[in-house]
């Protein structure tokens, strides 16, 4: 979105000037590219390759067995369920926050932006801890929950709450800069011509932000499904009951079932790769 034209501009300049004072000597260029690729190779490509190599190390059948085992399937179900709860509410929050921040001017906007970012600065373990302090057996609402026979910690609601907390800034952070860059003129024109607020949002704003919104949802979903630290605190690791996919991976790994752990991990890695693919596609779409 921003920099789409600028990027193209620099590329033609850099491409046209093969040598001379505006670019580096050939040797420096090769060294820098080599250095960057080596760094990314060691930190990104090797781990990525390892997941799939280890996952299929004992053959396809072992892979399928690890993925279709009942505990793995129930972990998949719980992960999908938690994401299905967390993503829609964070989507609503992201839309509301972006509408308020990008379309209006008000005092304390920077403070509000900082508050939205707050969960990014909180360690996942602390994020899980605060919900234990609130809803755990010895927590603030613990006795009340117990007397009403409600379970939040070591159960689905706790997992969903911790996931919502961790992923709450993602959609908002994706939409705010996008909507700020787009400005208000079209919406103002629609309202001036008599459109209702809802019509303006649905017919004007939503189509303008659809790709950014889609990426926000996808990223939020990937993070919700992959959340580990916070969920680890509130889940209690009850196999087949409160184990999400990342927790299942941890248990398998700690039981020295390495190849099974990587088989389940490969599912989460695929999710990450699809997320990256979609991001590239969206960037390519909006650059056109």
């Amino acid at each position: 979105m921003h920099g789409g034209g600028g990027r193209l501009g620099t590329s033609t300049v850099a491409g046209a000037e093969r040598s001379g004072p505006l670019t580096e000597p050939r040797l420096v260029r090769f060294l820098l590219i080599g250095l960057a690729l080596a760094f990314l190779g060691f930190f990104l490509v090797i781990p990525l390759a390892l997941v799939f190599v280890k996952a299929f190390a004992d053959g396809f059948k072992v892979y399928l067995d690890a993925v279709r085992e009942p505990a793995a399937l129930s972990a998949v179900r719980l992960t999908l369920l938690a994401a299905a709860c967390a993503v829609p509410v964070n989507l609503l929050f992201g839309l509301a926050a972006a509408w308020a921040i990008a379309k209006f001017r008000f005092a304390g906007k920077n403070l509000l932006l900082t508050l939205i970012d707050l969960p990014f600065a909180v360690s996942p373990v602390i994020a899980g801890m605060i919900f234990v302090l609130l809803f755990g057996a010895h927590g603030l609402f613990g006795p009340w929950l117990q007397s009403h026979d409600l379970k939040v910690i070591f159960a689905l609601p706790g997992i969903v709450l911790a996931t919502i907390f961790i992923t709450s800034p993602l959609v908002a952070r994706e939409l705010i800069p996008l909507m700020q860059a787009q400005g208000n003129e079209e919406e103002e024109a629609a309202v001036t011509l008599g459109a209702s607020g809802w019509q303006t949002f649905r017919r004007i704003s939503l189509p303008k932000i659809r790709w950014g919104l889609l990426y926000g949802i996808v990223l939020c979903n990937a993070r919700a499904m992959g959340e580990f630290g916070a969920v680890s605190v509130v889940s209690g690791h009850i196999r087949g009951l409160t184990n999400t996919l990342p927790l299942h991976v941890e248990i398998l790994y700690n039981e020295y079932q390495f190849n099974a752990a990587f088989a389940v991990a490969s599912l989460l890695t695929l999710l990450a790769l699809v997320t990256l693919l979609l991001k590239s596609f969206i960037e390519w779409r909006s650059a056109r």
Partner: protein
Amino acid sequence: MESVEAMPPIPPVQPIQPELRLPLPLARGRGRRRGNHVLPGFGLAMGFTLLYLSLIVLLPLSTVLLKSLTLTWSAFWATVTAPRTLAAYRLSLLAALGAAVLNVVFGIVVAWVLERYRFPGRRLVDALVDLPFALPTAVAGIALASIYSPNGWLGQWLEPLGIHVAYTPLGVVVALTFIGLPFVVRTVQPVLADLDTEVEEAAASLGATRATTFRRIIFPELVPAAATGFVLAFARGLGEYGSVIFIAGNMPMRSEITPLLLMIKLEQYDYPGATAIALVFLTLSFGLLLLVNLLAWRRSRFLRPQEND
């Protein structure tokens, strides 16, 4: 050139004053003074945002403060300054710092290469940079632990050289470098893309060598963005848990990070102890977040005239 001379001179474009953009009667009610409450939905959107933030983020977080008020000062101090706690704080801070420094150096190189050079597979590499954002931390953790374990893909070559990565503080730095990798690249890249190459041309035409141009012209422009990326990577590394615990070995006093110590306290139902450690840690993290935002506000104030052209 001739066609340009033949054309009539272009009158300078008058910037539209924001308050003149709309007929005044539309700016009604509360918003009249600021003149921008033309669009509806401010109350609803703002109300929902504040309610949500309070219920999901602020109220839960305040329990840390609330709970720590029930501690006596001496109990709080004893937990926070226990040798094991101090060792965990030190490891978390130093490892996050080391990883952030690595990421600043290599992040600038990666951003430069992706933005300025063309080579096969560039788009793929560019897309891959975001992998640590999207990959679950537990998956990264087991992959890195497996790679650097004494008989792993890289560990088997490093071990004979006397370099022990897995189950040492160095392993923590490796994991945190992975986690913080995208931050510096993604903050520096747009600045490089928007950089005016005319300034570089001017420097070159005035006789500056390429190295001087980079050092005196380009690098100073990158510093604020790189600083933001550095603090973001540092803050992310401080709190990181999933990718670290598999590779760290988790020996108390040596390779135990603060989030893990918290986890252990929670598993022992030592909630007061966990709260005390968390309070110190949260204060530090929020300080960093504030720093990032202050940097961002300064940058956006500085950039605004260019954005509105």
